[in-house]
């Protein structure tokens, strides 16, 4: 059996090596992130069948739980780790050619460390360890948003950093309070003892933790930083942030609420918050004329949808939410990567400047269209089964309030369709001003993009392949008694 710790140790070791390679050759250094991510994809998928049987619990340092730090490689953790690594791999290949200015070696090192941080958050079983890896994720993203050094990027990064730092501080405050209330930092240990703590202190500490994690998870109203950051970052970073970082933040929130605190009373509030986030995201996206800002607001809308689904707490709803998470990651990665070269070729980020790209960059535009249709939820792409599962689970709740919320979500889907179709229309049905010269994106960009497009189509046709893994993952999240038993015995 492969030890899941290698999912963290090997990329971390490679990250420390990148500056050394960079001194020899910048080209060599730019391939290391792809190698690290590929390793993680292979190991995570290899461990997944085992973890579905019985979650793998690793006690680090040779000491036993709860006196050591525990890694909990359950189906959910490994699924997300595989997703992080897959997205990381694809974007890393694209970035080899796309990133050609600035301190390139530092970019690639920071990128690997971002992946390490995200993988650490989903695999850990200890709340302070969660904080440390969460910080690795956040700080590398602050630096990468500012990578291009232009005015927009610096401003976005500064605002992101301030909000993120306050969020992390609140998270740490919550962790300190939880330690004072329960006496342990192990997630399973806290889950065991939190029942004995009176509800007000437990709620206050949970609130602090959720607000702290919510800044990164882009839950309304903590997501003011996101449109600026995701639109001013280089396109590869926009892709990894929208595709992975906010999802991992949402995972952390879900893990805290469900498994650690068992806070079922808070769920209704989170359902509302999710729908509110969806509305804010989709309405603002409609009003945008800058393509990257539009995609960023769309990410906010999608995260709201995933939060809505997961907070419904029935096993079908959680599985639907996780499926939506996967389909959003895949689609958003394609969208941002496609847009990356489109912006380069047309020289502007405005939607109007993308007119006629259907002729100029046919393959890239095709990828964009497929991903857009998937995100809106059209069959036969991956977004359809995921949205369908969510709607079905919400309707099954059989209370009027949920039907109203589902109606709101469907209205938001229509809005989503509107703004994406507007872009697709621009791509294919409008003539650009310039001559339609075929100037496609390089193959280093097209190959990774189409790998993901193929996955979107495959998951759309065979959703059961995914659902088979999602159901154990969903129960991993929701059933705290099983979690406690796996870790503490």
């Amino acid at each position, binding site marked *: 059996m492969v*030890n899941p*710790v290698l999912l963290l*140790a090997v990329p*971390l*070791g490679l*990250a*420390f*090596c*990148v*500056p*050394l390679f960079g*001194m020899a050759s910048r080209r060599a250094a730019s391939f290391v992130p792809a190698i690290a991510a590929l390793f993680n994809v292979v190991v995570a998928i290899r461990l997944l069948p085992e973890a579905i049987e019985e979650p793998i619990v*690793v*006690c*680090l*340092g*040779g*000491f036993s739980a*709860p*006196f*050591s*730090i525990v890694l909990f490689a359950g189906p959910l953790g490994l699924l997300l780790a595989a997703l992080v690594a897959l997205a990381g791999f694809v974007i890393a290949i694209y970035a080899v050619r796309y990133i050609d200015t*600035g*301190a390139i070696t*530092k*970019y690639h*090192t*920071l990128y690997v*460390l971002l992946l*390490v941080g995200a993988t650490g958050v989903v695999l850990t079983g200890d709340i*302070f*360890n969660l904080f*440390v*890896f969460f*910080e*690795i994720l956040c*700080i*590398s993203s*602050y*630096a*990468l948003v*500012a*990578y*291009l*050094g232009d005015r927009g990027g*610096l401003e976005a*990064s500064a605002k992101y950093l301030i909000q993120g730092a306050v969020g992390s501080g609140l998270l740490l405050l919550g962790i300190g*309070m939880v*330690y*004072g*209330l329960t*006496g*342990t*930092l192990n997630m399973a240990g806290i889950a065991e003892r939190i029942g004995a*703590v*009176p509800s*007000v*202190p437990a709620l*206050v500490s949970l*609130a602090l933790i959720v607000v702290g994690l919510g800044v990164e998870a882009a839950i309304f109203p903590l997501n003011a930083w996101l449109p600026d950051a995701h639109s001013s970052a280089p396109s590869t970073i926009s892709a990894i942030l929208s595709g992975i970082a906010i999802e991992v933040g949402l995972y952390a929130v879900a893990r805290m609420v469900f498994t650690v605190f068992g806070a079922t009373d808070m769920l209704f509030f989170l359902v509302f918050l999710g729908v509110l986030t969806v509305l804010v995201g989709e309405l603002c996206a409609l009003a945008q004329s800058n393509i990257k800002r539009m995609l960023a607001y769309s990410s906010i809308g999608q995260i709201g949808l995933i939060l809505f689904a997961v907070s419904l707490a029935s096993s079908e709803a959680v599985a639907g939410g996780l499926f939506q998470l996967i389909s959003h990651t895949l689609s958003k990665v394609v969208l941002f990567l496609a847009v990356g070269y489109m912006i380069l070729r047309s020289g502007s980020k405005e939607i109007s400047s993308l007119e006629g790209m259907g002729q100029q960059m046919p393959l890239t535009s095709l990828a964009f269209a497929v991903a857009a249709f998937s995100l809106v939820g059209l069959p036969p792409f991956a977004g359809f089964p995921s949205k369908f599962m969510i709607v079905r689970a919400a309707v099954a709740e059989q209370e009027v309030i949920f039907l109203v919320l589902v109606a709101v979500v469907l209205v938001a889907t229509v809005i989503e369709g509107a703004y994406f179709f507007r872009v697709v229309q621009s791509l294919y049905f409008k003539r650009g001003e310039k001559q339609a010269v075929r100037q496609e994106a390089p193959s280093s960009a097209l190959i990774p993009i189409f790998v993901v497009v193929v996955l979107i189509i495959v998951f759309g046709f065979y959703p059961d392949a995914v659902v088979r893994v999602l159901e154990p993952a969903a129960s991993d999240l929701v059933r705290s008694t099983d979690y406690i038993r796996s870790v503490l015995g």
Partner: protein
Amino acid sequence: MRTLTSLILLAVIAVGIGFALTEVPFGTPKTEVGGYYLEHGREETGAANTVTSVVVGYRAFDTLGEVTVLFVAALGLGAVLAAAGGAGARREVEPASLVLRTGAILLFPLLVLFGTYIFLHGHLTPGGGFQGGAVIASACLLIYLGSRERIISRVGRTVTESLSGLAFVLIGLIGLAFSAQFLSDFLPKGTLNTLFSAGVIPLIYVAVGFKVGAELGGVIDDMVKETR
């Protein structure tokens, strides 16, 4: 207006926290993990300083993460300032006074020695890799203040940073190879309170001390470059 809403918001949070704190009484033992570490820390890790046995023994993975955070920040700072290209206004800076120059040169070796002492003895006295590394970095800062020469070579600092980080990960992997757990102790624990005790802990702290010293020195170097 903004001040008023901020104050109201903070007041609400304060009330909530106040209620929560009634359950966290001051001065009483709250945990069993803390007691366990105090009771068993000496035998299980061999370090006399229990905080060190927690930081580098029981929770060594957190320390690896912490080292990584500092690495990320130093890299990020380098990447953000690199694009600037030192195009700042180059003012004529007057040379440092005689006292500062001489003092810096005299104190520098003492500070480096002191920092090294701190991280070597992390398992015996309060201190450790981070504290020692910070002292060494402040020694470098003193030289910058005193003689205005840039003594930290980019190559040297990158190599030190990367190799010490790798050393930490390799120690963990060797532990994995020896006893199927990452970062487990594979060296003998020796007798308490001597320098060569506590298994891998001093080795890890040496690696951390070098890394933090190189990183913070690098951060200082990057910042100082901006003002030249």
